[in-house]
């Protein structure tokens, strides 16, 4: 039955008694292995819980890069390739020169402003390590599609951001081999925590000269009407509005990336002409149109089809 050398019968067709014992032992081991009660590897743990993480499993998740370059994968990317990628996938939020669109982060400039009253903290002016940039881009940028770039693309776009900060020339090709040669200018300006750095006393009486007290800044409270509870029978519409605010407004509030702006009647007139069904379908499946790319469900694929339909109703209703 099992292809196990210990189970060979002798010439009389009997199974030897020793062999029988070994056969049973082999069964027990096989059972324990397949049932996961013991693992093939030597376990060190007291509780013996969990399963060993294989090198391959670790490789899939181990994405961090250290300043000494530990963790960097094989690969390379040029400033030139980076420019193309950056324009396509980053500029809509961070601006073509890294100047930041709206409140999205500024990525370049700001040198020498750290002691100003309004410092501009960028990769060039503030960050300490090139590895942080590579690590962060791979980890979570572009914002709507984390971990979507290949290693070569991360090298290229990292090189381009460094170039935008005047840290490398336009013909530079960034690779694992030359990575640690690039140092960020503010690298040496980080110091350890120095707290507690103030020493107040516990004075109880006459702690201040009353004449010295002045109100130097003041903000009045917002008077909030005490909410009279309403029985909510507009649940679907409210859900649509909420999902819009949480997810879709990212592009559809400002028109980012060519998205039709909710509330702008003219942005929606032609689209509505095609019918709600088509509109909803394109929002669910995603498509590339005349103005830009609408990702499937806006990139938030955990939303259900019904939720998307409710949001589209809300978006169209709000743009009449």
């Amino acid at each position, binding site marked *: 039955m099992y292809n196990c050398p210990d189970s060979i019968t002798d010439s009389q067709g009997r199974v030897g008694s020793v062999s029988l014992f070994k056969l049973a032992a082999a069964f027990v081991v096989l059972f324990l292995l397949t049932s996961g009660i013991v693992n093939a590897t030597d376990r060190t743990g007291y509780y013996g819980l*969990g399963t060993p993480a294989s090198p391959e499993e670790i490789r899939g998740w181990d994405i961090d890069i250290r300043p000494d370059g530990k963790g960097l994968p094989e690969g390379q990317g040029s400033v030139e390739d980076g420019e193309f990628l950056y324009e396509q996938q980053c500029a809509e939020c961070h601006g073509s020169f890294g100047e930041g669109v*709206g409140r999205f982060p500024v990525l370049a400039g700001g040198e020498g402003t750290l002691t100003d009253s309004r410092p501009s903290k960028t990769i060039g002016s503030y960050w*300490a390590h090139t590895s942080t940039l590579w690590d962060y881009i791979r980890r*979570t940028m572009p914002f709507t599609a984390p971990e979507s770039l290949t290693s070569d693309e991360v090298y290229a776009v990292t090189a381009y951001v460094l170039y935008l900060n005047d840290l490398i020339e336009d013909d530079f090709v960034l690779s694992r081999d030359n990575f640690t040669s690039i140092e960020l200018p503010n690298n040496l300006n980080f110091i350890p925590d120095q707290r507690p750095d103030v020493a*107040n006393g*516990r004075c109880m009486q006459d702690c*201040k000269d*009353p004449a010295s007290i002045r109100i130097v800044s003041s903000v009045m409270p917002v008077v*909030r009407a005490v909410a009279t509870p309403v029985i909510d029978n507009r649940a679907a519409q409210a859900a649509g509005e909420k999902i819009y605010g949480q997810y879709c407004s*990212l592009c559809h509030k400002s028109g980012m990336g060519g998205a039709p702006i909710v509330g702008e009647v003219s942005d929606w007139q032609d689209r509505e002409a095609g019918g709600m069904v088509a509109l909803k379908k394109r929002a669910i499946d995603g498509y590339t149109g005349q103005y830009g790319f609408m990702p499937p469900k806006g990139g938030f694929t955990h939303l259900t089809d019904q939720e998307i339909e409710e949001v589209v109703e809300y978006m169209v209703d709000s743009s009449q």
Partner: protein
Amino acid sequence: MKHDATPENAKSVKVSAGNDRRSFMLAGLGLAGGAAAGSMGLLADAKAGSNLPPDVPIWTKSLGSGVVAHPYGQPSRYEAQVERRTVDWLTADRMASISFTPLADLKGIITPSGLVFERYHSGLPEIDPGQHRLMIHGMVKQPLLLTMDDLMRMPSVSVIRFLECPANGGMEWRGAQMTGVQFTHGMLACCEWTGVLLSTLLEEVGFSRDASWILAEGADGAHMSRSIPMEKALDDTLVVYAQNGEALRPEQGYPLRLINPGWEGNTCIKWLRRLEIGDKPWYQREETSKYTDLMPDGKAREFTFVQECNSVITSPSPEKPLKGKGKYWIEGLAWSGRGKIKHVDVSLDGGISWREAGITSIVLPRALTRFGLEFDWDGSPALLQSRAVDETGYVQPTYQQLRDVRGTNSIYHKNAIHTWNLQPGGTVANVQLS
């Protein structure tokens, strides 16, 4: 939401009751209740006091809803204004953003799970716990993958600890800017956390004695990550799966998060998926670009982990104005990342004189502690302040003391004595004093 007593309810009462005369009477009652509940505001206006003595309130004269009307309970509908709020101008979008705990309406020291402030960097991931794994690897004898079931089989610990974003109050370095205590101090919460000590897991994987740092990383799109010193990890860091007696809320890292008691909330990685053991910090974006404190000379402090001693009066506050002269209960919260709260003093005159307040809650290390003080208001303006002292003897500083050392551009770790300006009408404004 369901009506407590609707005509529909009344009908079902009628059908289920056997006796005709009795069911008729019940139905009548139900109908009356339904009509009244539907237009309660109107009724109250038209006939003031109809729910007050000597009249008998409508809810006392009708049948309420039955069990499991809300299988998972919810607050009274009259508490609808107690909710998290955000300030849209703070961030570019709501996926990398923050909301604030409504401190003025909370009592005791435990923050209800649904009101704990939110902080996301790539939005809220919805994680299937059956497919969630915690990977532990690096300088260890046996890299492991742990399921939620595995973690639940390990020794479990519960502690009550505060959780505070180091940017709490950071908008006020240059001057008063926020409209209420929800926004000046609401990146703050305190919960009971239950999970496994990180040290237990480190022993289980056989960590190298040469290791000195751990990278913790989340399973959200941000793969939120911070380097944690081994010393802290072996001291009191917890890998947590429950909060206030139930599974973590999604907003708080369901199904698994880190809690570093007393340290920057940002280090308490939510949706925890990976721990890498190493011998150097990783200098992640969240420990260089952010969560470093820029000093006036252009240098920046890094790894400023501890949340120093702080306090605030939650009532009176902009959200809790006073309604005329007389006796009031001043109350508020104090906390310290270095241990227990020892004293809280309150001033009514902008810091000229101080009185020690009473501690009105249990006092736990690195937990919110509630204080209170009787106040007889004569209607004149007052400048209310609180000042906490922790068990190390550290006294909460003034703005001036902090600014003298750190300037106004360090964003994080602002724990200055806060001032409310109580005005003659009872209105309370957020102010800063010279």
